[in-house]
């Protein structure tokens, strides 16, 4: 009898836990997700410009790893918006990065890699829930050396 009670109680506990987990399910973190595509910022913008519908179907809702030059960093409350792209071009890739995922604020001109979920395009291609990837953040001087 006691055993039955224990079994029912533990089943109920598990079910409540599952229901609570679904309700309070945390946001999918791109941290441990493999990117569906690894692409340069300029190539991504170009693809959206050429055929927005096709690029939408290909990239929107997917985890992308984008590499490009930082054009601008906007710090807004607990959020950073890092815009990748050529300063002379109208469009770039706008990535929103939560403060807790930002160890060191990147500087304009640096080349960085960012992983995030593609939401589509407005003026810029928009990446959400993004994280900065550690790696060789080359700065402009470096690039000029290479040239």
């Amino acid at each position, binding site marked *: 009898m006691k055993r039955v009670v224990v079994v029912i109680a533990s089943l109920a506990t598990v079910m409540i836990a599952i229901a609570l987990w679904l*309700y309070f399910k945390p946001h999918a973190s791109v941290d441990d997700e493999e990117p569906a595509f690894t692409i340069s910022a300029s190539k991504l913008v170009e693809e959206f410009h050429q055929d927005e519908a096709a690029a*939408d179907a290909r990239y*929107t809702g997917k985890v992308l790893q984008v590499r490009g030059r930082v054009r601008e960093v906007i710090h807004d409350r607990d959020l950073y918006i890092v815009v990748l792209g050529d300063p002379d071009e109208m469009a770039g890739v*706008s990535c*929103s990065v939560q403060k807790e995922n930002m160890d060191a604020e990147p500087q304009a001109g640096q080349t960085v890699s960012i992983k995030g979920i593609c*939401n*589509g395009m*407005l003026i810029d291609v*928009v990446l*959400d829930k993004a994280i900065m990837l550690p790696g060789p953040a080359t700065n402009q001087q470096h690039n000029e050396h290479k040239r």
Partner: protein
Amino acid sequence: MRFLLVTLLCVHAAVLARAQTKWIDRTGSASFYSSAPMEDIKAQNNQAVSILDASSGEIVASMLMRSFDFRKALMEEHFNENFVESHKYPKASFKGKVINIDKIDLSREGNYTLDIEGEITIHGVTQPIRLEATAVVANETIEAKAVFPLRVSDFKIEIPKLVRSNIAEVVEVTVAFNYKPM
């Protein structure tokens, strides 16, 4: 010679003035707040885009529905998949005009109240809208903010019976743009 100099200065000023008439914000915020008996829900979008023409008063704004962040992942899923159908209608947009632009000079620093009339499109449905916004012009920026109500059913967004006590019929929308010269 002096005439030439004055002419050049005038042209220069005109060019500068024209360059200043278009303003843009690519990281505008839009949020909505739903207060219902069962729970309060807030979602925030920090990557809205807007362009303001300070001389004609024309305003356009656009945002991706998927960029609305919710505190709970499940709500974000329901919002995108069932309510606003982001796969079919990825963007919300606004197109309108500051109707009292004649009485306002946005090239001068100060606080202004803007009367705005236009059309808002959400979930593929376009509705006329009239709203009041505040604008603060200072340090080469125009900070504009508006709070207005939207009735969910006006945009053919269906809320299933099961969650009707969790979602308000009218949500409060707040938009804020920090325009910089384009």
